[in-house]
């Protein structure tokens, strides 16, 4: 995203100048998150939902539970699918059309976090082995973009899944029929993604759109409840030294419990 236009070089200069004083454009410290607000079960027709505000970043996460055939190599397990939609209302530069690489990356990083941590009990989603399983769709709908979508979406996905219910099926002969009853989905783990971006020699958390626009690169690290890493993803057209990577992991690890607590919303 950086270097996409000439103006951002000016922006980059200003942002780096302010960073060198130990502060950021909006007065936060390097490790501060903007205000994170998550509302759960805001939608009536979806099985689970969460509305996330992270500063001006606004995301709606919807969970739908449908049915389908299982994958050949896991006939007794349900399926989790994550999809991200960059709506044209979220940013002046976003156009309608097929998903671009950024939305694919967002969906896949959140998806890998949920899968790696084994968030859902996939065996519970089995209806008829090899024939019919529940498919849990997590749709990340971006309503306003102001940076740090991965963190906002991963927290939102956990919040939405925790409040989600799945329809109960009974097997009649060779077919599964919904009984009309709904039970809560089992959420075994609550992975949260924390992104660290690098601008010059500074590492900062929760970047705004402006900061993302001028960043050198980003490292997203996902942690599960036990403090284990479950996903990493580096993006952006600069390299990171080994020391920087270790620093990023530490920064993310320290922040993860705070964000998880907000996502769970005790």
């Amino acid at each position, binding site marked *: 995203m950086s270097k996409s236009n*000439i103006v951002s070089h000016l922006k980059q200069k200003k942002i780096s100048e302010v960073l060198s004083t130990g502060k950021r454009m909006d007065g936060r410290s390097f490790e501060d998150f903007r205000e994170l607000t998550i509302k759960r079960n805001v939608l009536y027709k979806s099985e689970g939902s969460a509305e996330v505000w992270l500063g001006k970043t606004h995301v709606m996460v919807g969970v739908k539970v449908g049915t389908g055939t299982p994958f050949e190599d896991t006939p007794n397990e349900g399926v989790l699918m994550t999809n991200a939609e960059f709506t044209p209302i979220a940013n002046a530069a976003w156009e309608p059309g097929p998903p671009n690489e950024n939305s694919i990356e967002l969906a896949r990083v959140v998806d890998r976090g949920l899968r790696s941590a084994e968030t859902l009990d996939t065996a519970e989603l089995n209806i008829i082995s090899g024939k019919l399983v529940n498919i849990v769709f997590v749709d990340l709908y971006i309503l306003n973009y102001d940076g740090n979508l991965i963190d906002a979406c991963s927290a939102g996905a956990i919040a939405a899944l925790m409040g989600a219910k799945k329809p109960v099926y009974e097997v009649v002969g060779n077919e599964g029929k919904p009984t009309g009853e709904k039970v809560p989905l089992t959420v075994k783990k609550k992975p949260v993604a924390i992104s660290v971006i690098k601008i010059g020699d500074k590492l900062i958390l929760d970047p705004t759109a402006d900061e993302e626009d001028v960043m050198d690169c980003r490292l997203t690290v996902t942690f599960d409840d036990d403090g284990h890493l479950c996903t990493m993803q580096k993006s952006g057209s600069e390299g990171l030294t080994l020391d920087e990577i270790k620093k990023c992991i530490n920064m993310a690890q320290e922040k993860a419990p705070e964000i998880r607590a907000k996502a769970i919303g005790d």
Partner: protein
Amino acid sequence: MSKKTTTKKTATRKPARSKKAKTDSWKRADGRAFDELRTIKIESGVLPNADGSAYIEMGRNKILCGVFGPREMHPKHQARPNEAVLRCRYHMAPFSVDPRRSPAPSRRDQEISMVMRSALEPAVFLERYPRASIDVYVEVIEADGGTRCASINAAAVALVDAGIPMKDLVAACAVGKVEDKLIVDLGDYEDKKGQSDMPIAYMPKLGKVTLLQMDGIMSTEEAEKALDLAIEGCKKVYEIQREALKKKYGIDQPQDKPQKELQPEEPKEEPEEEPRKEEGSQ
């Protein structure tokens, strides 16, 4: 008689000892040590129509990479006024995996194309070719785990083969956790059973990691160990990449005949770049 028995004893002891050694060092399914790479074969300049190309065999992975450019950007509005645009396309042949896969680009393909680009970009002097595009096309002919790393290894060699000025080579290698042990360069059979997988690309001279992904579960200590192991692996790959380039261009080789025959080709490549630059800046 007594002599015979002693020889028998030593004969039986030997395999016993090697068995013990095996359990001590925990060999993998294919007998490799934990930090041993699969056999890597890289050949550069294999595609006659590409400006630069490379073929890599990493274990049973077979991957072809072609580089086109720097050339005029099409469509024009994607060009950047201050530098070249590096475009990558990772694509798997329908017959490269079992079962057959659709030749249409999947989400995975698009993501790999993207991370490949960010892995290679830091190594290329893009500012040398404003308004131009450099296209890197990767075709996976046969896949056997670790294709994104193998693709990056081939692409780096192909970029050099295209005569594009580079800050460093990019070498890639994966580390994974199988049965709670960290191992380097996972094959398909290990990748699917493994607990986690962490592909890394590294520029050895600049000491920078340009690709870093991970899935599965790892503790922070394991992750740090894995990083170190992967970087060691990348350094080994780097040597093989250099060998492949030396083989074609004969630089640093002991004075012998093939080198003299190959050398005159080199200056030819450079003047070719200049007119292209002009074309781009019209």
